[in-house]
């Protein structure tokens, strides 16, 4: 480094202590400050209002003439001349510690349960860093959730990111809570933790989760980050990052198996769109910014397992599809990043089926390596494939029946209808507290398949038929 460079770098550090009085423009959650010292991109901003309260923010755009910062606490009540701004010279960091489990925080990681702020063991940058693909361990440990349609057909694997695509009024919270309660690795006692990030959800929803964790006695293993519907919308942008930072710490420094539930990703994306619109960026689809994919990937890719580390991060993001439309940019881009999806179907919910998981569009990409002999049971891969194939034919038959009437169907098609009914009522349907072992799940699957003639079962082997069919 040359002398002039060293001088410049020292100057930059000294100037970082400066405080600016007055801002030049406020637009939504954004503040604009002119004539500053060189401010770094994504640097942490402290914005002090006239009552002396500090709101945190982040630099979005920096140039020699003007700096744009977004304020996570919102800008309401700020006056242009009396607002003080300080730049911290480093990105937003939070203190993390194991003691954060059992506590409730806001989106920035500050406690809101009345207790004191926990003393951190480490201070970490909330933005995280990309994981080197060569450092990853390919996930293949089966998690038994006790829910047949997940264990049997869309198996959850430790280290997977498997979102729930739901709609308003569908029981996604119930399912997420049930998974959090029941999920376990078979035959292993391990340290586990749940990190819960709420973005723009209602107080009732937050309370439902807290109550559900309380009842199952796991609350002391749960850290909650709440940025609820009446909190500033901009705070939602930082909430998942804070939560993931803690999750990474717990998983890779404290050897824990972390399940992180993020709800509702749709609200997160809305906030992103809000900021993008205010900044006048060129929108892509439906007004969402062109970088929505990259931004979501930054969150979703912070999961998995690493070589040489015992812990893992399993992500269960929940998103409500606007207007139940799976091709909407939010579910669409999510599906391109996550390793499968669990899709809810309003029609099944209407018929009283819980969980209303649509059989065909749901998918778990990591399933193939986590099931079968020595992991679940040797017949599992073929059985799942056969159930999918048969159920897909049921859908065709039902469409046909709605046109020509059930009477006109062939006897074989009638058998398929019976199978479909049994599959939905006995295999998929279960109680909100029912915890089935994977063997029970697979046996139920065979029970449903036994309604079909043996010639129709192309995807299972002779031996499996002999052992389980009929």
């Amino acid at each position: 480094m040359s002398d002039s460079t060293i001088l410049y770098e020292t100057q930059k550090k000294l100037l970082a202590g400066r405080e600016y009085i007055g801002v030049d423009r406020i637009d939504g959650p954004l503040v604009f400050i002119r004539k500053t010292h060189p401010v770094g991109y994504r640097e942490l901003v402290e914005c002090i209002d006239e009552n002396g309260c500090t709101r945190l923010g982040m630099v979005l755009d920096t140039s020699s003439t003007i700096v744009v910062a977004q304020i996570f606490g919102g800008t309401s009540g700020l006056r242009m001349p009396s607002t003080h701004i300080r730049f911290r010279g480093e990105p937003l960091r939070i203190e993390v510690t194991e003691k954060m489990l059992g506590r409730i925080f806001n989106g920035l990681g500050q406690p809101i349960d009345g207790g004191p702020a926990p003393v951190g063991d480490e201070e970490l940058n909330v933005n995280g860093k990309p994981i080197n693909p060569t450092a990853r361990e390919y996930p293949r440990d089966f998690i038994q959730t006790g829910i047949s349609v997940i264990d049997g057909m869309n198996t959850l694997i430790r280290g997977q990111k498997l979102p729930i695509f739901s709609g308003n009024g569908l029981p996604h919270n119930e399912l997420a809570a049930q998974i959090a309660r029941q999920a376990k690795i078979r035959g292993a006692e391990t340290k586990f933790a749940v990190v819960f990030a709420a973005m723009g959800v209602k107080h009732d929803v937050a309370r439902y989760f807290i109550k559900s964790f309380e009842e199952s006695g796991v609350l002391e293993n749960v850290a909650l980050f709440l940025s609820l519907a009446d909190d500033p919308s901009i705070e939602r942008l930082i909430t998942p990052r804070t939560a993931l930072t803690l999750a990474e710490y717990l998983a890779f420094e404290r050897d824990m198996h972390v399940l992180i539930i993020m709800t509702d990703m749709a609200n997160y994306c809305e906030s992103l769109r809000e900021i993008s619109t205010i900044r006048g960026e060129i929108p892509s689809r439906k007004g969402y910014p062109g970088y929505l994919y990259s931004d979501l990937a930054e969150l979703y890719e912070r999961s998995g397992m690493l070589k040489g580390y015992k812990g893992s991060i399993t992500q269960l993001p929940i998103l409500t599809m606007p207007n139940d439309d799976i091709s909407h940019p939010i579910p669409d881009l999510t599906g391109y990043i996550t390793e499968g999806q669990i899709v809810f179907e309003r029609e099944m919910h209407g018929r009283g089926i819980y969980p209303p998981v649509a059989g065909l569009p749901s998918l778990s990409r990591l399933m193939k390596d986590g099931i079968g002999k020595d992991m679940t049971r040797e017949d599992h891969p073929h059985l799942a494939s056969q159930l999918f194939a048969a159920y897909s034919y049921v859908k065709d038959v039902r469409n046909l029946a709605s046109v020509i009437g059930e009477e006109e169907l062939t006897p074989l098609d009638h058998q398929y209808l019976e199978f479909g009914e049994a599959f939905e009522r006995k295999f998929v349907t279960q109680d909100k507290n029912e915890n089935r072992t994977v063997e029970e799940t697979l046996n139920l699957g065979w029970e449903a398949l036994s309604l079909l003639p043996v010639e129709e079962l192309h995807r299972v082997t002779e031996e499996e038929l002999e052992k389980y069919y009929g």
Partner: protein
Amino acid sequence: MNERIIGLVKRVNGPVIEAMDVSDAMMLELVRVGEVRLVGEIIKLEVESAVIQVYEDTTGIAPGDNIYGSDMPLSVELGPGLIGTIYDGIQRPLEEIFKISDQYIERGIQCPSLDRDKKWHFIPLDLEAGFTVTGSMIIGSVQETERVEHKILTPPDMNGTLISIMPEGDYTVEEPIALVETQSGEKQLFLMHRWPIRSSRPVTERIPLSIPLITGQRVIDTLFPIAKGGTVAIPGGFGTGKTMIQHAIAKWCDAAIIVYIGCGERGNEMTDVLTEFPKLVDPFTGRSLMERTILIANTSNMPVSAREASIYTGVTLAEYYRDQGFHVAVMADSTSRWAEALRELSGRMEEMPAEEGFPAYLPTRIAEFYERAGFMKTLSGQTGSISIIGAVSPPGGDFSEPVTQHTKRFVRCFWGLDRQLANARHYPAISWLDSYSEYLDEVTPWWEEQVGTSWVQNRAEIMELLQKEVRLLQVVKLVGPDALPDSQRFIIEVCTLFKNAFLQQNAFDDIDRYSTTPKQMKMMEIILTYWRRGYQAIRRGVTLVKLRRIKVLQDIVKMKFAISNDDLEGFDKLNDRLERALNQLESIYV
């Protein structure tokens, strides 16, 4: 490194940096930004100002930071040691980075692409001093892996006379192996040289395509074949199996070298390749598949501008091996992410958008990329090819979006993935209605010569049946299957059999994951026997129910799992059993 300051940061907006006080900078020059030395590239030059796209996270970069020039365009290192390595989008070896910075990728890491310490055993060609040296000429070879004999090439822009060449022996990539007198003085040659990623390497001429790239995937090889040197697009919504097809082709196709570009996709998918490929054995040589594979991984959470560069990096490596006379297959998964990176950068530069926010130069860029494929006569007189297989991820699975539409203009083969098929777990979910291949006529002579003369008629017959089936299914949807006569219901029956027994292929089954061309041919013939003979039988009065009940049908459905590639007699036996069963059935009705 001879660094010089070429300007100062003026504005930071994500991965795009505006520079001021710019002097002495070159368009597309590789630059380093700030004291952390982030890698970037100059993409716009004006009087005293420039726009730089940075390939790493720009957090903390402030106005006034220095920008250092490197005096060369963004280039890749070409030499022995590429095979089996996993690189990021700008050819930094991820395994080396892992050693330096542990599980996360730190910024500003400088790491040579090729191992500087490893010695390679170089065998020179018998060249005399005074020999005329031209570009891309072979001057010797190195055994890179057990299956790849790496030819050492002169840089493509070389012209001169040979002064000396080193004897056979062990050299690192930085030790000189030859000395050449050129117009601009004496030049040393090394085992490696550099080439800018955005320009294609020169060749003598393009050769018409005629050889199919055999993938072992029945629906591809038989219905929609791709030629060596061809281009193909695979569009499909999420969960339709783009990546599975790319993986299957990377594993089993008969190219000598595979370049797999994971462009903006999932981290675990790259890990899957990394853990699985070394264990898999190539059916042609019996060696590990990793010994022919180069991976470029720029996952979705890695910086977006490096994603833009990754496909150029990948295809440049492919061109280098093509110039040595290899057949190379490039998998780009997914080109949509690359197009989105273009869109994001264009948006940050405040350019006027065309369709859906994509820049107006999107089609040009797509065309440039796909045109780097081809069957070529190289400067060294060899022949080699690059086939590009690009996945496209259309938003909402809607093929009318700009990336799919523009890609369709520049590729000659199209494997459209169908959501319905994927939902029924019919994989590979390549739709036989939307897909097409313009290479059919080009590869037909090869099939007829190598496999069997009836191939083209068989294929046409089955395609016709599939088309007929669509129309019949529409009728069934309205009035039910009972309204159709047996002869027409039999078409549906045969098509269902064809889909289950032939088109569906299980990538995880040890036997089914890969089918040789003779196996594909035999399987098709058995199904066609059932069709031709069964149709005759129905005209003689045999009922459909009877035809369906033939016992041997169960074995036909499972023949893909049951009969291995080497056991062609197994198929003949199966065919005989089918014929006998049909004879028996007919004999009752005569």
